């Protein structure tokens, strides 16, 4: 102990500034809002059915649609697409019948929002009255008011809040409440007295409350709560009356509403606990992590930190708060429970939004994609922002970034559980949820695909954050994180939209697969068509319908272009970054990312050229060894196109794997995708240019034709989208194997080196 007394004073490292990046908690509130509004849509749709719908009119209209369909007026002759078109028109006809419900649903949402706005304004006034707050007058506490005004200016508030107090409250504490434009801070009598007895403690507590206002916690919290009470008032209460004679359905709805309430309540508490720490941290900026705030927080009444009480509490334990004041790094991470709750909130009322959009759009994929825009964007706002924050926290504190996979698994778990709790699920239907399918052992592949997609996307976000933050170094990376999160939101929208559509139409897909299997059998009798699974992967129309969506290749290009665009960051500034730290002396001087763009492009070009050569050899071989009659058959042409696509996919896989071998940084998979896209684009060119080449050079012709370019742009576009999308899947698989193998080899090498030269060996 004596030796310690003589030790130099403890000089803690500067704390990373959690306000340097937007907080994920705002998006968590927004997800709750979306979930509640989604439930409102469902409730008012039900209300329309129960109260507003003219049943006779609806039935008559539906029967008229059916009659039209049966009379064949929808069917255009013997066109093979006629049935599909007829089905679409029938759906559109029925949708028109139910479109009145839309006004009820949107009206319900408008009503909830109106009442919520009114409550947001009224609530603080009620609170002020009920708590017995009275204005803090200058004649009572002139010095306190002077100090409060100064603290308000220090906090950077545009407008000083109203100061009110409870003279008979003996404890020393404060409370922020109100709404934008009319914020108030309530002080207890005990706190006002502290201005004289312990000014540092007084300032620390007031700074905490002002930080709530500055961090926009007050408006957000009261708006969210107002929305919840408005939902109870103008959605749940009338809904309950319509359920009185519904028996088991009412029970089913009740427990689902209870689950939604629990989600809102627990998430609100979790977010508030998190915001308390943010308020502490902002308040501590004035007097440091070991100042008066730490002393006052440390003296607060402790409580049980066990799980049930912890979930219900509005404040973290004093120990946690003091720890967070000293080390802000945990504020840059997201827990698995938070990711789970985000997934749950995103899907708990996804179906209701899906139904609403479904009355305006015909294509199920468009419907799911539009519905997914809201929830995917908010989900990325929670998890994506958290990963960027973690990347920054890791950089600023020189600590490892958190693992992505627990967050991804928890998020998927939330996505699986959400539909189980949705109000739409109260109506018994034939559609089994993914979770039920999984429990029955049928949905394993679906869940596996969802897990893989989500993990890949989260890893991409983390990788993008890592390379961009290092490239920007001491500069704020506002543009980078905005762009990165927008791309991620777009990608997740596409993923969720496609995933839920495929799930919804799994029976149609199964039928399509049966037809594709028959097709495979048919063409196999004429030419080698490879294994059926490969044929299914390349040729199944249902799969093609999804992967040929224009947004998918665009998303793929953006997914590799964004991380690789760091090579464009030329001026690199390292060193002092006051914005990045709460305390003086913080520096950002990371290693420059080892990202290359020319290398994967060169690999892709080489892969493309190899693919072109393979096409020439393939065409020449067929011309030489397959007779003209066989070559003229449609089945043969089908297999010919099939094998050309397979060659393109193999070339993309090899190019992707090669790019993975050379890639050195966190964004390895971006280089893999880049190489595959370049190879796929050249392969597409070779594929569509084949008939022209065959027309000009007989040795590579399949069917005799003119030496002219008569390939339609639509066909070229279709093939490019297919090759790039399917090639991306193949390249990612190969790339993952290569990256995994390299990681394993690297680990083994390090272990061997450690065995040969143990740490510290040879040191004096």
């Amino acid at each position, binding site marked *: 102990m004596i030796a310690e007394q003589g030790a130099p004073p403890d000089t803690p490292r500067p704390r990373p500034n959690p306000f340097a990046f937007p907080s994920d908690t705002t998006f968590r509130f927004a997800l709750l809002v979306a979930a509640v509004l989604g439930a409102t849509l469902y409730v008012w749709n039900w209300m329309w059915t129960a109260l507003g719908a003219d049943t006779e009119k609806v039935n008559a209209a539906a029967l008229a649609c059916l009659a039209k369909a049966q009379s064949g007026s929808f069917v255009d002759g013997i066109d093979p697409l006629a049935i599909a078109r007829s089905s679409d028109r029938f759906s559109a006809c029925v949708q028109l019948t139910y479109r009145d419900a839309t006004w009820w649903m949107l009206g319900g949402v408008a009503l909830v929002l109106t009442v919520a706005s009114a409550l947001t304004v009224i609530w603080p006034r009620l609170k002020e009255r009920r708590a017995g707050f009275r204005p803090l007058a200058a004649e009572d506490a002139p010095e306190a008011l002077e100090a409060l005004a100064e603290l308000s200016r220090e906090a950077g508030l545009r407008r000083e809040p109203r100061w009110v107090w409870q003279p008979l409250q*003996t*404890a020393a*504490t404060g409370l922020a409440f109100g709404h934008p434009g009319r914020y108030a801070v309530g002080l207890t*009598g005990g706190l006002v*007295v*502290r201005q004289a007895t312990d000014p540092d403690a007084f300032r620390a507590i007031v700074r905490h*409350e002002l930080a709530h206002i500055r961090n926009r916690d007050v408006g957000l919290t009261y708006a969210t709560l107002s929305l919840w009470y408005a939902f109870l008032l103008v959605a749940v209460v009338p809904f309950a009356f319509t359920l009185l004679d519904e028996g088991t359905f009412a029970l089913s709805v009740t427990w689902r509403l209870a689950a939604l309430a629990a989600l809102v309540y627990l998430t609100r508490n979790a977010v508030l606990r998190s915001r308390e720490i943010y308020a502490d941290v902002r308040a501590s900026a004035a007097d440091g992590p070991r100042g008066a705030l730490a002393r006052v927080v440390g003296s*607060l009444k402790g409580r049980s930190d066990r799980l049930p009480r912890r979930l219900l509490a509005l404040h973290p334990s004093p120990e946690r708060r003091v720890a967070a004041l000293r080390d802000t790094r945990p504020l840059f991470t997201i827990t698995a429970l938070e990711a789970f709750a985000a997934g749950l909130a995103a899907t708990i009322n996804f179906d209701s939004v899906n139904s609403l959009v479904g009355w305006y759009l015909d294509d199920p994929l468009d419907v799911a994609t539009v519905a997914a825009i809201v929830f995917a964007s908010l989900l990325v706002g929670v998890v994506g922002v958290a990963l960027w924050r973690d990347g920054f926290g890791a950089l600023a504190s020189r600590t490892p970034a958190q693992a992505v996979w627990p967050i991804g698994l928890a998020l998927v778990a939330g996505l699986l559980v959400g539909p189980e709790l949705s109000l739409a699920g109260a109506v018994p239907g034939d559609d089994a949820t993914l979770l039920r399918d999984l429990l029955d052992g049928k949905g394993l592949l679906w869940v596996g695909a969802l897990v893989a997609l989500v993990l890949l996307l989260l890893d991409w976000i983390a990788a993008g954050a890592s390379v961009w933050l290092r490239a920007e170094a001491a500069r704020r990376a506002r543009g980078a994180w905005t762009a990165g999160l927008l791309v991620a939101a777009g990608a997740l929208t596409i993923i969720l939209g496609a995933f839920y559509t495929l799930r919804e139409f799994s029976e149609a897909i199964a039928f399509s697969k049966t037809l594709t299997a028959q097709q495979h059998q048919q063409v196999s009798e004429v030419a080698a068509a490879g294994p059926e699974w490969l044929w299914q992967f390349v040729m199944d129309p249902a799969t093609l319908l999804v992967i040929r969506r224009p947004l998918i290749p665009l998303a793929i290009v953006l997914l590799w272009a964004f991380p690789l665009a760091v090579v464009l960051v030329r001026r690199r500034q390292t060193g002092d970054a006051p914005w990045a730290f709460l305390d003086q002396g913080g520096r950002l001087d990371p290693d420059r990312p080892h990202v290359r763009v020319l290398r994967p492009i060169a690999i892709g070009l080489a892969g493309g050229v190899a693919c072109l050569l393979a096409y020439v050899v393939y065409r020449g071989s067929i011309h030489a060894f397959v007779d003209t009659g066989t070559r003229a058959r449609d089945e043969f042409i089908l297999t010919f196109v099939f094998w050309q696509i397979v060659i393109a996919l193999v070339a993309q896989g090899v190019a992707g794997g090669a790019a993975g071998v050379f890639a050195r940084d966190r964004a390895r998979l971006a280089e893999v995708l880049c190489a595959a896209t370049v190879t796929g684009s050249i392969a597409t060119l070779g594929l569509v240019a084949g008939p022209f080449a065959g027309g000009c050079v007989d040795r590579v012709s399949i069917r005799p034709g003119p030496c002219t370019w008569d390939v339609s742009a639509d066909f070229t576009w279709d093939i490019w989208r297919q090759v790039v999308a399917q090639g991306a899947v193949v390249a990612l698989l190969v790339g993952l194997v290569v990256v995994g193998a390299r990681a394993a080899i690297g680990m083994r090498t390090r272990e061997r080196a450690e065995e040969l030269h143990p740490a510290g060996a040879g040191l004096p």
Partner: protein
Amino acid sequence: MSAPTIDDALVAALARPAVAETAPEELPLFRATSEAYFHDPGSLTTKGSRDAMLGFGVDAAMVLVTPIALSVARDVLNFVIEQVRAQSREHGKDAIDRLTDRLLRRSSKPAVQPEGQAATPATPAGPAPEPEAPDLTKEQLEEVREFALEKAKQFELPPEKAKLLAESLVGSLATA
């Protein structure tokens, strides 16, 4: 028998010197605090703060004495008046009023008058000498002290402050 109604001014007159002695830093807030107390005595909270949304946290420490002093003073006065009422045969029926006047006059003396405020519309001293109010015996004062201490402890005031408050209240009564 119902408890006698105690004049708010009398309560303030008894509590104020006690606050001046126990927690002088609270004197500037005495007027506002006593107003709030007399307006709604039931809202006095000494249970520490709640875990309120966007509050600072649960503070168990109690740092404000004035509301407790007011509450204890009211109880003490009730207690004392009960005692005096019992002696009213000896000192006449106006004994309680005379005691009240004495306390109020004491509180309106310049020495203890708060800056720029009057705790009560003090009763003006009459020109004619009045009969003496009964003095409390030493035993009675000790009884009052015990009573006040018990009340203060019920409010979970720290023992030292509770003792000081009780003694201060008794002192005010003894010297009134």
